């Protein structure tokens, strides 16, 4: 197993004048309430996790849950109060200013909720901005930026100013800008939250297409649980600065760790989220039918086929080997069972 790209060990972020002293005295036992009484606000409370190469970790939480603060600690836009953060093995908090700037110029890209485009630069200039900051020749940077414009499908609008673009188009510019330096690590801070629902869906699909092509290591922040389920390899759910649960979407839906997480999962249409492999039995029973389904199918897509069978259905992997089985009853139970209304 190779080194994780991002590694956090007990990261704390506490706002307030006495933050560091209080954290030391708390001895790893941070209680938001006592801190608040002493004029400190706990932003991130003991966050530990790893993100490996090419993985997309989605951090989900409501406003004030500390998800954006966590992201800013990892990009070191704010300094974490305690804990350690490693980016590809480098201790982030020990980097000096120059090393940090180098890291950002070569390894990191970030997309912002309000797009954060420079109003005085054209689309092309905005995208070329990180390259020019790095000191790349104008011509090269413009060529590279033009590639990015094409990548996000804004050809023909490269000489527009941000004020002349719609929200979705502006965020495409933001995405292109963050990708211009070809970073390994890609931070996205609620990139689609400011967009209309239709545009948001379109951008999500576009984003998945891009990620398939680019295979970046991603930390994606959102307050939208559906968005998290749709995009994530793994989801971290945050509340009051604490990571409540960090797991794959399927596990979160099937086994919510806390009451708080369970509330989110209640309304989720499971058939749209879960894959066959999430609910199948590893064993193959004897009375297996003729129908075979792939383990990577979403339940919704094959439910009709399976439910019309009377026998257990065989599950195959990519090479058509049978790796397990699934009973129609199991499908019914997962999709409709275990909900509050039915109890």
């Amino acid at each position, binding site marked *: 197993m190779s080194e994780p790209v991002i590694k956090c060990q007990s990261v704390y972020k506490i706002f307030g004048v006495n933050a560091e002293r209080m954290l030391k005295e708390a001895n790893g036992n941070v209680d938001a309430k006592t801190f608040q009484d002493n004029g400190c606000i706990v932003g991130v409370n003991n966050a530990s996790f790893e993100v490996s190469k090419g993985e997309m970790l989605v951090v989900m939480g409501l406003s004030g849950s500390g998800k954006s603060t966590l992201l*800013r600690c990892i*990009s070191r*836009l704010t300094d974490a109060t305690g804990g350690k953060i490693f980016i590809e093995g480098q201790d982030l908090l020990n980097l000096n*200013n120059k090393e940090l*700037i*180098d890291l*950002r*110029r*070569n390894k*990191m*890209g*970030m997309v*912002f*909720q*309000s*797009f*954060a*485009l*420079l*109003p*005085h*630069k*054209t689309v092309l200039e905005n995208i070329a*901005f*990180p390259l020019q*900051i*790095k000191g790349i020749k104008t011509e090269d940077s413009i060529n590279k930026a033009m590639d990015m414009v094409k990548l996000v499908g804004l050809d023909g609008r490269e*000489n527009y*100013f941000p*004020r002349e673009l719609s929200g979705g188009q502006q965020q495409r510019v*933001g995405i292109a*800008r*963050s990708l211009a*330096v070809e970073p390994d690590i890609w*931070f996205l801070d609620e990139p689609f939250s400011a967009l209309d629902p239709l545009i948001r869906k379109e951008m999500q699909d576009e984003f998945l297409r891009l990620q398939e092509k680019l295979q970046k290591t991603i930390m994606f922040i959102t307050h939208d649980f559906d968005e998290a389920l749709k995009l994530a390899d793994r989801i971290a759910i945050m509340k009051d600065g604490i990571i409540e649960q960090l797991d794959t979407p399927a596990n979160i839906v099937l086994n919510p760790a806390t009451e708080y997480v369970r509330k989110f999962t209640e309304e989720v249409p499971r058939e749209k989220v879960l894959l066959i492999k999430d609910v199948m039995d590893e064993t193959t029973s004897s009375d297996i039918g003729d129908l075979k389904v792939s383990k990577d199918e979403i339940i919704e897509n094959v439910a009709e086929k399976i439910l019309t069978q009377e026998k257990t259905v065989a599950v195959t992997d990519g090479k058509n080997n049978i790796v397990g089985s699934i009973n129609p009853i199991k499908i019914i139970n997962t999709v409709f069972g275990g909900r509050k209304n039915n109890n």
Partner: protein
Amino acid sequence: MEVLKKYPKLFQWLFLLIVFFALCFGIDVPETYKFIRGQAEFVKDPNQSAFVFLGKEVRYYAFDVFWRLPPLLGWLPIWINDSLFFLMNDWMPMEFWNEDTQEYKTRPLVLQITRNLTAFMTFLIELIREILLGGLETIVAFTSWDWIDANPWAELPGLPWTIVAAGSAILAYKLGGKGLAIYALLSMTYISIFGQWKPSMQTLSFILVAAPLSFIFGLGLGVAAFKSKRVEKALYPILLVMQTMPQYAVLVPALVLFGVGDHAAVIITMIVAVPPMILLTLLGLRAVPPEVIEAGRMSGCNNWQLMSKVLIPTARRDILIGVNQVIMVCFSMAVISAFIGAKGLGFNLLLALNQLNIGLALEAGLCISLIAILLDKMSLAWANKQVDYFGNLNFFQRNKNSLFFGVIVIVGILLAYVGSIYFKDGYNYLFEVPHNKGISTANFWNKGVDWIFDTFFVYIKAFNTWLIVDVLQPMRALYLRMPAIATLVLVVGAGYLIGGVRSALVVCGLTLFIALSPWWDRALVTTYMATFGVIVSCTIGFTVGTLCFQNKHSSKFMLNVCDIFQTFPSFVYLIPVMMLFGITDTSVLIAVIVYATIPATRYTIEGLRSVPAGLHDAATMSGVTKFQRLFKIEFPLAFPHMMLGLNQTIVFALFMVIIGAFIGTEDLGQYILKALSDKKGAGIGLTLGICVAFIGLIFDNLIRTWVGKRKKHLGID
């Protein structure tokens, strides 16, 4: 009792007023009290008391401390004066190399620094002046008089007025389009034809030096304040005082440090013009969205790149609004600094007013106003102009303005050459119209003034007498009748009721400074005049504002009128009132009222406009009448903003009252004017200026605190 329980604040205010009046009636006027000689005077009189502090003797007429506090700060102006004198003449003498005499000479450090600064400023002003008007000083500075004699071709003339006029039109076109260009061309032509070219260009060259320098310093300090909390905290009180300090008052210390002339005026202009630039820079940088800053950081900007490529361009508009402010302050200072010998339109205006030649004053004033509007509109257009994309234009399209200007220069020079042949004997009107050879309407205006006086003298006189005898004198007497302790109780009490202990302490400190200075009586007179002006201005402003607000077009029109009136340097307002009312207190007050009505009207309209449209609709759907909506919805919500207008009105009124000293008033302004012609006036002028600033700050603090609380209560912004 029910009422008291419902409005506890009302009860507190009533109590305060009762205490105030009890003190007023309880303390009798001392028999020896006589206004003006009320307190410290710099004359010797056996009836005076005296004390010595820090080696300075302060003489004053002693009264009961409840009636008037002794001027315990009387040593301050003398002390400031002596320190300045010491710094300039005796502190740190050093050897300096003198270019002219080719030998070392001993000079005090500060004197040397100020002289060098002076020389530098003079050089800059001369440089621009010689481009516009011609002259040799700059070339001589790089070569020598002998060289000029040997090379007579270097005696370049200035630019012909045609080129400057057309050039400004092109610039105006580039910034603001056709309308502005036509306005620029017309006003420049007017200035030339009416023979005001030379003074106008002198004023312009003054601004072209002062404004860029102020901009650079203001931007630099603004950035420093943005980056460091400590710098901001250090700058804040200075900014606050400078905002309410009458521009007049800063002239006096400048006189001592830098002498008389344009250079001193430029330096002092910078001191006045930098604070608004700092404030607007700070405001603009603060308004940059945090995400944009983060985006810059994540793009790998170092601090310098972040500032120059992300923050400042994003804050461009606010910073350019700052430039607009700087230009306008520079312009009004260019006029006022005529008092310390700056050349240009202001000087002509001052001269004409001194000679009571209203016609000439009016012409100079008109030129000042035309240039003021032009500069204001141009810099605003620049601020509001959005960057355009030029990449897809060809060379000619991209550079059409510069190319066109090149053509203009050639045509202008040709015209001037033709002119030199055509007007063989006299003046070359196509090059420059000399000051006394233009068209002048002065006689017409003077006759008009005479006619007004002949025809309406009786009415004006009657009005004047009525105002002075029945309104102003009693009001002034009332103000002077207040014992110092009563005033103090009133102000501190108000501070406590509005903003708690902190506010009370601040206003107490500010008031005490004035009360302990030797000019309490005069400060009362200043306050009375300002109060009168403010009451009338607010009545007019709130009424006019409310009426104009009823219609979209009229409110827009009124705001434009306010904009234009605000660009005129305050001094210009004295011209028409002197024309109508001659040299009396009435003139000053009318100028105050006209000037101070501008912010009152503007803030009323803006406040009423800022009431959210949703509330309007909600009220309309509840079936309110126009009046109900005005009184139940719009006024309560707009009131905090209108109070900010009151704050501005007070500052404007104070400025004008002080400038009114030029016409003749018996207040702080009179002493500032006196200090200007006094060799030892620096300390007095500065202290007086601070007193005026503190009067403004007392109201400023009270109103702002109240507005802040009220807005919080209403949940606005």
